[in-house]
């Protein structure tokens, strides 16, 4: 499903160059769930950005469902994301000007799905927000906002779901419920899940675990 080969990422810092990722390779099969753990600044988010095609690598390649990201320009990468990729972010990343329903409809419209409103409503019901469809993000609690984000991620039925510290901004109980929601939806949809977290409990729920340290990635057995 996703294959990463010899991935490097470096950025200019002052007069020097900072190497964030130093030759990362791994492969995740369709339907698998994987957690990437590491301390702050270890390069987890940089790797996630490259895997999702949000950024370009200095060297190496990421292949999603047989499509090499290295050969795609930004618009083609965007089209690939619209078709195959979903996101759940630590800070939810909902559009403040859109209602819960419209936020969920957005990726459906971008991928050209039919009846986006019906589908968005269905997924908001699934995450328990049937009575919050017309609410704007600012009027929702953190847990509710993350549930909207989860509904948005799954509604487009992506083959690949990236989650960046999905419980990082939530309290313990709410985080627990969100974890349950993500995994249950993931199981029913058969989506490939790549999760970046420093929460070992969350990582333990995944089938595979990778540790990120000093720009290198190693699988933890």
């Amino acid at each position, binding site marked *: 499903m996703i294959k990463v080969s010899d991935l490097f990422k470096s950025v200019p810092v002052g007069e020097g160059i900072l190497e964030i990722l130093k030759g990362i390779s791994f492969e995740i099969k369709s339907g698998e769930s994987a957690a990437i753990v590491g301390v702050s600044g270890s390069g987890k988010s940089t790797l996630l950005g490259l895997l999702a095609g*949000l950024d370009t690598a200095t060297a190496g390649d990421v292949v999603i469902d047989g499509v090499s990201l290295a050969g795609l320009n*930004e618009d083609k990468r965007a089209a690939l994301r619209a078709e195959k990729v979903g996101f759940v972010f630590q800070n939810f990343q909902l559009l403040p000007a859109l209602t819960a329903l419209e936020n969920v409809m957005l990726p459906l419209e971008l991928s050209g799905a039919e009846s986006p409103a019906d589908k968005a409503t269905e997924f908001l019901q699934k995450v328990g927000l049937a009575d919050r469809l017309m609410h704007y993000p600012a009027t929702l609690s953190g847990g509710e906002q993350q549930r909207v984000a989860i509904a948005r991620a799954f509604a487009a039925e992506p083959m690949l779901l990236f989650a960046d510290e999905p419980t990082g901004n939530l309290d313990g109980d709410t985080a627990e419920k969100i974890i349950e929601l993500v995994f249950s939806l993931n199981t029913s949809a058969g989506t490939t899940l790549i999760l970046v977290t420093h929460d070992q409990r969350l990582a333990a729920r995944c089938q595979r675990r990778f540790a990120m340290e000093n720009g290198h990635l190693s699988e933890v057995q």
Partner: protein
Amino acid sequence: MRYRTGTLSPWLLLKRDWRGGELGILILASALAVTVVVGMSAFVASLQATLTDESKRFLAADRVVVSDSRPDDQWREQATGLGLASANTLAFPSMAVTATDIFQLVSVKAVETGYPLKGDLLISEAPYGPIERSGDVPPPGEIWLAPRLYSLLEVALGDSLWIGDAKLTITGTVRREPDATSGTYGYGPRVLMNLADIDATGVVQPGSRVSWRLLLSGNEGALDNFTQWLEPQLGQGQRLLGAEGDQPRVGRTLERAQGFLLIAGSLAVVLAASAIALAARRFAERHTDSVAIMKSLGAAQSAISQLYGTSLFLVGLIGSAIGCALGWLVGYFFLSLFGEELGVTQPALSLAPFVIGGVTALVCLGFFAWPPLARLSAIAPLRVLRSDIKIDSDHSRLDYVMGIAAVSVLMWWYSSDLALTLAVMAGLLIVVIAGMGFALLLLSGGRTIGSSVGSIWRFSLAGLQRRRRASALQMVIFAIAIMLMLVLVIIRGALVDQWQAQLPPGTPNHYVLNIAPEEQDALTAFFDQYQLARQPQFPMTRGRVMSVGGEALAEYGTESDAPRQREANFTYAWDLPEDNELVAGEWWSTDTENYEVSLEKEFAERLGATVGSTLVLRIGSEELEAAVTSIRQVDWQSLKPNFFVIVPPPVLAPFPKTFFTSFFLPEEQKSLLNDVVKAFPTMTIIELDIVVSEIRQIMSRVAQAIEVVLGVILLAGGLVLIAGVRASVDARVKESALLRAMGASKGLILGAITFEFSVLGALAGCMAIVGAEVAAWGLQTQVLDLRYVPTVWVWPVGILAGVVIIASLGLWSCRHVVSTPPVVVLREL
């Protein structure tokens, strides 16, 4: 195109964003720019048409051939052949005599059917009876009189009156002629008779001092053809009026007003463009995260561009529609102000102003709003993971250059005046560049002061320091907005003051000529008896310039293109008269015994005389030689006595002279004129009251128009200030929310915000004062032809306005920092 519906519909984007405030500013600013441009262009176009119409009305025709001999009949045949209407008039002074042998000098005008070709001849039957619009002229054998002639001559309707040998019956009263104020003024009250009776009078002989006018009207093409055909045939004493370049007396006043409106309109567009740029920038900043999210979810760059491009187009459309409607109203208002005064039917508003308005909106939004929005599509989607990734602003300098170029081209287009455009733009650029440097310097100074003062001040000054560049830019923007508003207030004051100074209440509206030296005291006593404001009496001697630099001039009336002898009223004076400006040479000293002469500029040009030329002057039968020692520019529009030729008093001492004065006669005392004429039958009175009241009425209308424009400018300036304050509100709100979360009191936060904006406002006010004075000087002296006087009252007002307006707007924009829990504020950001 599928994104034009659903959550990515531009309409929904606009609807949802309305709360943010920037859209309101964008729409208002573009509407304002369009309003100003549509209103101004409609008005200026109509004003030009009106000026032309007005000049035609004063001529009573589209073109007039003035001649001191009867115009060639062939000219009328040619005009008729070209489809032009024509009519001859003949004017001359003559003595009217009644059956009871009462004599009175009158201004005779003999007209023929068709007169006037433009404007209306108003008549009544009884002297002061109801006015009947007349489409006719006195039939042969009849004569119409000016109202006051009835009492002067002690006649009534139906009585007979002799003009020369012709006996004519009085059948009507002339109340108003369209061309009463054009060209020469009448000597004595008007009588109107039929041209067919002229031969019978026997008063017009070869060599008589008469003024023939061939009036012509018709379409412009035929008139131009006629002009081209006629001009080579015009001889001495003949000239054509009404072609381009001839302006009525009020022309210069209206031209100044038009110049002011063009400058004001252009500045309003600059202000609106600035407000648009600021609002669009903040709009884009607020949308950065949303675009990153959309892109992370798969939106292509083109979709983002399309979304924001269409939204901006809609903003432009709404703004233009509102602007066109308001502009039409402004134009209509201006026209209604002037339509009645100038007595012309105003042309309908044409499409052109709306096209200019639309192009203005397009340029303002395209060059000022679109660049930051266009860059939105280039935002890296990675921003969803790393909020430190900023929008690419490498091209913003190019945007500024393009924006300035675009506004310059627009201004040039509106004004068709490259010098004016370059002057205004150069002034603005200097203010921006010098202002940025000055602002950065001031803010550096603030750090030193800030370290030694209380917490509110320290926090405020630290805030300004932290956003040093942004604060400096904001300060410059505030300064420019305040500056432009001050400039217009100053210039408007100068324009109105100057007009009022030109024609203050009590401006003399009657001239008295031919006052004999022994009548001087009696006339003064008469004025004092009736408490009439009088002016000094100027000595006057009729003389003729015979030769210039030893070259004898051709005789008056001869066919020659070379300078010819000129007859004029000479006066003497020790001092340079008020309203006269020396343009060459030097004024004589008060003890000179030299034979010197000072000439009016155009008079000198027509004679071919310059400083140093020796003139031979003939006064009566004597000739004397005098050297030209100065050339003067005379303001003929001041309506004060002015002379072509002035000499030192000893030069005219041996010659007989009469005196000349002017006085103000209120409308309600008009009948007193008859008493003056009866008491001083040898004096000649010229009535200028119609001209004075017309000019004054037009000036008051212009002042009203300027008030409206000023209001629009203040609104545009206010928008810039609001947009400027809002540009930094997010950062301030966030900082304040953090401080509140850490326990800072509301008082401290509000105090710090107030102080920070007050400092910005005060510094901007200081910069604005300097800029405004410099700009006002440039515009008044170089563009509007006005005198510059420093406007001291503006200095404290500028600073106070800066502090009060900016602090109020700042506080208002940040008000919810203290009224909303910090957590909500922080969550919204």
